[in-house]
């Protein structure tokens, strides 16, 4: 299984290194042809405005949306969350509006307001996540189909999941945190081979419609 990491700009090497620590191959994605055969896609931190321009210039928008519609799991961190948001409060154009959320860019202020903290993410178990926020966005609105995965003490939302799309305002890849990547790898493996547990019993030689 290979997981793509959008590599037009940003901290993509850190995600590939994190995937390597859990035994998953990460591949750099700069062009639509790089998306062939990926079982999942990570959108890394970086500058969302620069990433947006590069995504559009090289025609990555439609192929990524198509991938997501086919059920391939996507995971965005920081700028990646902004790319995945259905709305951006300052009116910046949306890019891959797959999450029914509104985000505010640079919501905490400038670099001097960047911070680290311990964050409870119940879905990942009792051990808190060490979260690094760098000129980070926050989620200001979530739609009814969106699960909130984590909030700051003041209630502001910083991690969400909607179906096959997960996004965090912080950077697990900068703190040696692997559980989000394990989650995506598991979702990707399930998508590749959904198994036969859900009541459906296709003939073993006729697994049509499933990406392998």
């Amino acid at each position, binding site marked *: 299984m290979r997981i793509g990491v959008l590599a037009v700009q940003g901290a993509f090497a850190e995600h590939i290194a994190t995937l390597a620590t859990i035994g998953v191959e990460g591949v750099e994605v700069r062009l639509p042809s790089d998306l062939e055969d990926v079982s999942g896609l990570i959108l890394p931190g970086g500058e969302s*405005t620069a990433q947006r321009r590069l995504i559009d210039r090289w025609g990555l928008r439609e192929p990524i949306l198509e991938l997501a519609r086919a059920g391939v799991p996507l995971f965005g961190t920081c700028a990646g969350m902004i790319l995945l948001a259905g709305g951006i409060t300052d009116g910046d154009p949306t890019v891959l509006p797959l999450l029914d959320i509104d985000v505010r860019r640079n919501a905490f202020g400038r670099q*001097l307001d960047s911070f680290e903290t311990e964050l409870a993410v119940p879905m990942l178990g009792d051990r808190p996540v060490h979260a690094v926020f760098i000129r980070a966005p926050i989620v200001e609105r979530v739609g009814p189909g969106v699960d909130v995965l984590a909030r700051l003490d003041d209630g502001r939302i910083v991690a969400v999941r909607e179906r096959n799309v997960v996004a965090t305002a912080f950077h697990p890849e900068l703190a040696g945190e692997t559980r989000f990547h394990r989650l995506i790898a598991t979702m990707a493996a399930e998508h590749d081979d959904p198994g036969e547990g859900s009541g459906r019993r296709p003939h073993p030689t006729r697994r049509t419609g499933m990406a392998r």
Partner: protein
Amino acid sequence: MTVETSTWATKKGLAQMLKGGVIMDVVTAEHAKIAEDAGAVAVMALERVPADIRAAGGVARMSDPAMIQSIMDAVTIPVMAKARIGHFVEAQILEALGVDYIDESEVLTPADERNHIDKHAFKVPFVCGCRDLGEALRRISEGAAMIRTKGEAGTGNVVEAVHQLRDVLAEIRRLQGMREDELFVAAKELQAPYDLVRDVAVSGRLPVVNFVAGGISTPADAALVMQLGAEGVFVGSGIFKSEDPARMANAIVQATTHFDDPKILADVSRGLGAPMRGIAMEQLPESDRLAIRGW
């Protein structure tokens, strides 16, 4: 829940977010918008680009805070600004303004010929120039959270940038091949702290992000240093001293992303108009070289 700001991870982390990107020198809010629209990951706010600093002569200082503020107000990408080497009060002023990164820069006239700024004392992260590995590690030990090779600013000539980047990376490879007991002497020779030298020998890379600066003026220049191992580029005079800055800026951004794809490089290099004129190193007297500033 404890919240800690200005930690090593957040300082170094912002530079990690800039990787694979282009940081552009801008002198007005209008330039900053052009840079942002072209896909810059950050801008360096300064009063004159290095080519003009060279031409003007005299003492080059920190820019007017009003001008830096106008650029901070104009764009949403990070804004960096330059302080003179050793001028910790200029750095304090830049921190008070709330810039996102301070460049302790040889492009400005040094304020201290022995000491650099104690960068650990600041909440805002610093980027510093280097010509070799020893200089890079000395700056990191003083607290720099990002390194750039200096090149030779304002010349439009990439030769020094290439030379210095190759030197830094070759020295790293040399350390990797050393026995544990040889690293003590290596640290002495590099005039750098042993712990950092050992860290580089083990990891095979600098402990912070490493960009290239000084002399990049075409998409091919940017791709050249990226292929050699840079993690991103600073472009100073190369953009706003070219014939068509917006197109040149955009082309350099594309080339930095697709640095390893000659077909795309050929495509983005087409019809850009004249790059900045440039200066051959032989025509540049020793006294006019900026890279030798810093110790």
